[in-house]
């Protein structure tokens, strides 16, 4: 690897990191604003024009709050919990292809931090690590509400990871690759050989299962039982204060961003857009592609929030019923149907 490659990668990593942080930051603002619009309200509008500086004010507040570690809490784990949560949230974006190759002079820049050939498995690994942040935090707090939240988070994530994995297997039957770059490339354009190229149109049921599981994995409403303000005070982060609490909240928004990016890449064509083959300049295609990918991501984030202000929380037994008795059989049926259709088409 040459020096320029390393520099380019480092710059790319910093940019991706910064973008995910900024998007997570403004997701908090967007959430409050969108919640307000859904409820016929105005939302934050005091800090700066249209309340645009609200996230900065919130951040400053989080940093300046007193840091409390409960006496009976287990000291080290109490700090490890939120650190792990934010760490796993941040490293998920490493394998997502943000765009095609950008050519500047003689250097070719690959708009992906790393193209590992098991990209999907990597994301799954990171996602299943994410639950440890919540579990450790809830356990270390030495508080029954935190513990209940942590237990709920653990069982919920384990249950929904299964159907998420099964829905991905059906997608793998279609794509034949685990690399996110290759999956994105296969969805080039919008229409090819009499059918849509985007995987959503080949795997609608798989997508439905995946998005339901994504909601559960990111602990968003209607699957926000681990936090569950109305029952568990604050769930796993009841005892947390200051920036440690901020990290937990922040990790949730970064997770939302990353899972939106994964869904856009796997099912909605990633950086591909209709009529992209009509544009000559490859650099222009790449730049438009990046913009399109982010538009898709924002649409998904909006959808996350839209759902949050529409659907009430599931009861715990309903959650388990949905996961084990509905989604897993559906996902298995989806695999079988996909297999049969692929065999028949070949």
């Amino acid at each position, binding site marked *: 690897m040459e020096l320029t490659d390393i520099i380019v990668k480092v710059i790319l990593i910093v940019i991706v990191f910064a973008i995910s942080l900024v998007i997570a930051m403004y997701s908090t603002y967007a959430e409050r604003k*969108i919640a*307000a*619009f*859904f*409820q*016929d*309200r*105005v939302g934050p*509008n005091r800090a700066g024009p249209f309340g645009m500086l609200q996230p900065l004010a919130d951040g400053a507040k989080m940093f300046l709050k007193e840091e409390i570690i409960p006496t009976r809490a287990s000291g080290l784990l109490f700090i490890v919990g939120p650190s792990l949560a934010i760490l796993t949230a941040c490293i998920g974006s490493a394998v997502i292809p943000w765009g095609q190759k950008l050519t500047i002079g003689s250097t070719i820049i690959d708009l992906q931090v790393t193209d590992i050939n098991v990209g999907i498995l990597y994301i799954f690994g990171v996602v299943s690590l994410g639950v440890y942040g919540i579990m450790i935090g809830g356990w270390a707090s030495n508080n029954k509400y935190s513990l209940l939240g942590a237990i709920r988070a653990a069982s919920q994530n384990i249950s929904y990871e299964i159907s998420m994995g099964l829905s991905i297997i059906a997608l793998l039957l279609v794509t034949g690759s685990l690399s996110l770059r290759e999956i994105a490339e296969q969805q080039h354009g919008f229409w090819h050989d009499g059918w849509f190229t985007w995987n959503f149109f080949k795997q609608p049921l798989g997508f439905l299962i995946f998005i339901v599981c994504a909601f559960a994995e990111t602990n968003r409403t209607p699957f926000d039982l681990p936090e569950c303000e109305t029952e568990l005070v604050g769930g796993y982060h009841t005892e947390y204060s200051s920036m440690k609490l901020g990290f937990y909240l922040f990790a949730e928004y970064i997770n939302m961003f990353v899972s939106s990016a994964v869904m856009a890449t796997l099912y909605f064509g990633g950086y591909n857009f209709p009529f992209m083959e009509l544009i000559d300049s490859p650099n222009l295609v790449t730049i438009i592609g990046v913009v399109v990918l982010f538009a898709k991501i924002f649409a998904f984030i909006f959808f996350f929030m*839209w*759902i949050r*202000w*529409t*659907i009430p929380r599931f009861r715990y037994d309903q959650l388990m019923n949905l996961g084990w008795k509905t989604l897993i059989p559906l996902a298995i049926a989806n695999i079988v149907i996909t297999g049969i259709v692929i065999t028949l088409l070949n």
Partner: protein
Amino acid sequence: MESLSNKKKVLEVKPLNIWERAYLPAIFKGLAITMKHFFKKPVTIKYPEQKREFSENFRGMHSLKRDEHGRERCTACGLCALSCPAEAITMTAAERQKGEENLYREEKYAAVYEINMLRCIFCGLCEEACPKEAIYLDGDIVPADYLRKDFIYGKDKLVEAPLNQ
């Protein structure tokens, strides 16, 4: 049991059909409803900048009126204090001296006139009781303050601004 009022309705709880049990159609219906609200105009009135219009007969802070020559109308008869169900009004009467005819309309006037805004219930009975049309509850909302003593409003806050010559 027989319903006496004839209004009793027996409801039948039907098991959900497959369409309802699928849950998704209901979700889309819900999403459509929330989306309708998304584009609705917010009902919020941004209070300090914008104010909701008061009704015609809104009763706010009291004001002690002046007559057409700018003289105080109040003659300190005490009927307002007497009529006040919350006992919020007190006053001390004084006799008008020579040369003060341009200040006070009657020969007797209120040297001190105090309303305790924490006691006042804004019923408007003082307004009705006043024979001289000297007191009206036509002001704004009484503003918040920090100390109880600051809610006792004297003549400095109650009497109308003098006429501009």
